[in-house]
C-alpha cells in the first residue's frame, strides 16, 4: 500500500478490455461448431447444389450447365414417392404421438422415481442395436406366417385393412401398413423424449389448482396440461416427421416397390442408376418441401412464446 499511486493505474486499466475479450471468447467457443457446419453441411450443400445443375454421364463426366429442367423431370418422375413419403411420415408421426403421449405422461406424473428411470431406459434401449437389425426383426414379426398376421387374420382385421388399401392379399409385409409400423417403431423415442421433458417440468400443483377451480380431470388435461406441453409436442413431431420423410430403410425392407418413398428414389439414383444430378435435385426438393411444411407448422402451432 506504500505504492498506492503506482498500484492504482494497473488496476484500472485492465478492466475495460475484459468486455471485448469476453465477446471474443464466445466466438472462440463457437468456432468448432461453425467449422463443423462449414465442412460437413455448407460445403456438401454447395457441391450437391452444383451437381443437381450438371448434365452428362459417369463415362463422359458431368459439367455444370445450369440445367434446371432436372428438377422438373425429377419431380414429375417421383411425385408419388413424395406423396407417399409425406403421408407415411405424417401417419407415423400421428401414431407416435398417440402412443408416445400417454407413455410420456405416465412416466412424468404417475411413475415413481425408480420406475421412471427404468421406463426411460427401456425407451432408449432399442438404440443399443442398429437401426437396420431392428427393422429386419420387424420383417420377421410381420411375415406372412408370423404371429401378427395370424392374430389379425383371426380377428378379421386384415379384411378391413385390405379394403381400405393399407394391406393387400391378407398379408402385412410389403404393404403400406408395414412401412408405417416400421417408421412409427423406429422414431417413437424421438417423440417420447421431448414430450417427457416438457411434461416433467409441469408443476403438479397446477393440476391441483385446476381441480380446485372446478376443472374435471379431462378438462384439466385439455386446458392446462396439454397447452403447457405444446412445445414438447412440436419438438417431438418435428423430430419424428423430418427424419421419417427422408427415410428409405423401412420402405426398402418392409415395403414392396409400390411403397417406395423419396429416400428410395434418391438412393437408387445415387447408387444404382448413377444419375447424380437427379439424385441431388431430389434431395433439394425434399429439403425445400420439408422446410416449407415445418415453417407453416411452426406458424400454426404458435409456440414461439412458450419455448
Amino acid at each position, binding site marked *: 500500500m506504500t505504492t498506492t499511486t503506482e498500484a492504482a493505474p494497473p488496476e484500472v486499466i485492465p478492466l475495460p478490455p475484459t468486455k471485448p475479450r469476453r465477446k471474443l471468447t464466445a466466438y472462440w467457443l463457437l468456432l468448432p461448431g461453425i467449422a463443423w457446419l462449414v465442412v460437413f453441411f455448407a460445403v456438401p450443400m454447395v457441391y450437391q447444389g452444383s451437381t443437381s445443375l450438371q448434365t452428362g454421364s459417369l463415362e463422359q463426366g458431368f459439367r455444370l450447365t445450369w440445367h434446371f429442367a432436372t428438377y422438373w423431370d425429377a419431380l414429375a418422375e417421383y411425385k408419388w414417392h413424395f406423396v407417399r413419403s409425406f403421408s407415411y411420415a405424417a401417419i407415423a408421426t400421428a401414431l407416435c404421438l398417440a402412443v408416445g403421449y400417454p407413455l410420456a405422461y405416465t412416466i412424468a406424473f404417475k411413475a415413481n422415481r425408480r420406475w421412471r428411470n427404468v421406463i426411460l431406459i427401456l425407451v432408449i434401449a432399442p438404440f443399443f442395436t442398429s437401426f437396420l437389425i431392428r427393422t429386419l426383426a420387424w420383417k420377421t414379426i410381420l411375415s406372412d406366417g408370423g404371429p401378427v398376421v395370424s392374430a389379425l387374420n383371426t380377428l378379421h382385421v386384415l379384411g378391413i385393412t385390405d379394403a381400405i388399401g393399407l394391406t393387400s392379399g391378407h398379408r402385412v409385409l410389403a404393404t403400406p401398413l408395414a412401412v408405417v409400423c416400421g417408421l412409427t417403431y423406429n422414431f417413437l423415442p424421438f417423440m417420447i423424449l421431448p414430450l417427457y421433458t416438457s411434461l416433467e417440468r409441469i*408443476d403438479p*400443483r*397446477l393440476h*391441483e*389448482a*385446476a*381441480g*380446485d*377451480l*372446478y*376443472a*374435471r380431470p379431462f*378438462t384439466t388435461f385439455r*386446458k*392446462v396440461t396439454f*397447452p*403447457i406441453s405444446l412445445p414438447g409436442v412440436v419438438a417431438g413431431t418435428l423430430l419424428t416427421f423430418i427424419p421419417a420423410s427422408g427415410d428409405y430403410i423401412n420402405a426398402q425392407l418392409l415395403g414392396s416397390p409400390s411403397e417406395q418413398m423419396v429416400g428410395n428414389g434418391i438412393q437408387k439414383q445415387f447408387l444404382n442408376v448413377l444419375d447424380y444430378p437427379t439424385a441431388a435435385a431430389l434431395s433439394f426438393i425434399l429439403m425445400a418441401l420439408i422446410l416449407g411444411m415445418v415453417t407453416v407448422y411452426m406458424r400454426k402451432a404458435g409456440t414461439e*412464446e*412458450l419455448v
Partner: protein
Amino acid sequence: MTEQLRDAATAGGDVRLTGIGKTYGDFTAVHPLDLTVPQGSFFALLGASGCGKTTTLRMIAGLEEPSCGTVLIGGQDVTALPPYKRPVNTVFQSYALFPHLDIFENVAFGLRRRGRKDVKKQVEEMLDLVELGPLARRKPHQLSGGQQQRVAVARALINHPQVLLLDEPLGALDLKLRRQMQLELKRIQTEVGITFVHVTHDQEEAMTMADTIAVMNGGRVEQLGAPADLYENPATTFVANFLGQSNLIPAEVTGRSGEDLLLSASGVRLSVPRARCATEATRIHLGVRPEKITIAHASETVAEGRNKLSGTVVDSSFIGVSTQYVVRSEGGGEIAVFEQNMERDTRITPGAPVVLHWNPAHSFGLDASQAIDAGTGEEAA
C-alpha cells in the same frame, strides 16, 4: 332431510372436521382431530413445518384423502367429493398460476369451468379489487411476487367460495411486502365476509390476521383460541415458546395462600394465581413473558407482593423501541427481559447485579412433565 337443509342454510360457510386424520404408511401426519371453523371467521393453522397443518388444509380442499373422519362444509358432508365439486377455493403456496394463460384468463378460469355469464365484467371487477386491472394481459412470469400473490387471491375469490383456503400464501414474499399483504388480506376478508382458513408457520402473521388460531404440533392441535388468549394463557410449553417468547422457570409447589400457589424455584420463593396454573402437578414450569418483567438495579427496593429474582446481566442489546437483556438468575437459568426505552437506568450493563420483578398474575404455570424447550426451534427433535 329438512333438518340437513336448515343446517346447511344456517351453517353457511363453517367448516367442521370430525375425527379427521391422515396416515402415510407408518407415519401419522395428522392424528384424528376435531375442529370447527365458524362462518365468516379468519382462522389460522399455525405450526412448524411438518406439523400437519398443510395436510389438514389439503383434506378440506379435497386434495388429500383423509384416512379417517369427515369434513363438513356449511353442514354438507364433502368427505367423498373431489376438489372440483367442493365449495372451496385455494390460494396455493407459490401460487400455481397457469403459466400459459394471461392474468385475465387465470382469474377467469374458475368462472369459465362453471360456464358463468358476464365473465369479462366479473374478472375486471375482481382485478380492480386487487389493483391489477392494467396488467390483465400480462403473463404470470411478467409479474412481481406480490402481484402474482394478488392474482392467486383474485383467482380463488372470484368464485365466491364458501371457504377460502390459504396455504402459506405469503411465504415467498419479502418481509415488508408480507406485512402489507397481511393487512390487505385481512381487509379483503372483512369486506367479503368469507371464511378464511390460513396455514402459516409465522406466528406473527397468524396473530396479526386471525381471529382464531389453532397451534399444531406433531399432527395434533396443541391449543385453540384467540391470539391474545393463546399468548397470555398458553396451555403447553410448545405454545408458550412457539407463540412469542417465554421464560420458563422450573419450580416446585410448596403450598398455597388464598388464591395463589406458593412456589420454590431453586430456593427462591415465587407465586402464581391458581387459576393461571394449567396443572395440578407439584412440579411445574413457571412461565413469564419477557416484556412483563421489570428490571431494576440490585440497590433498588421492590414493592411487596411481586415475584422477585436476583441475577446478573449477561447481555444487553438495544433494538430501538426496547432493550433486550439476558439475565443469569441466582438459580442458574437465563431469563430474557424486554424493557421499553423510557427511563433507562445507565447502571444496568452487562455484569451489573439486578433484580427482576413482575406481577404474579402475569405468570402462568405449566406441567413440568413437558419438554421445557418444546417449540423453541432448538429442541432435540
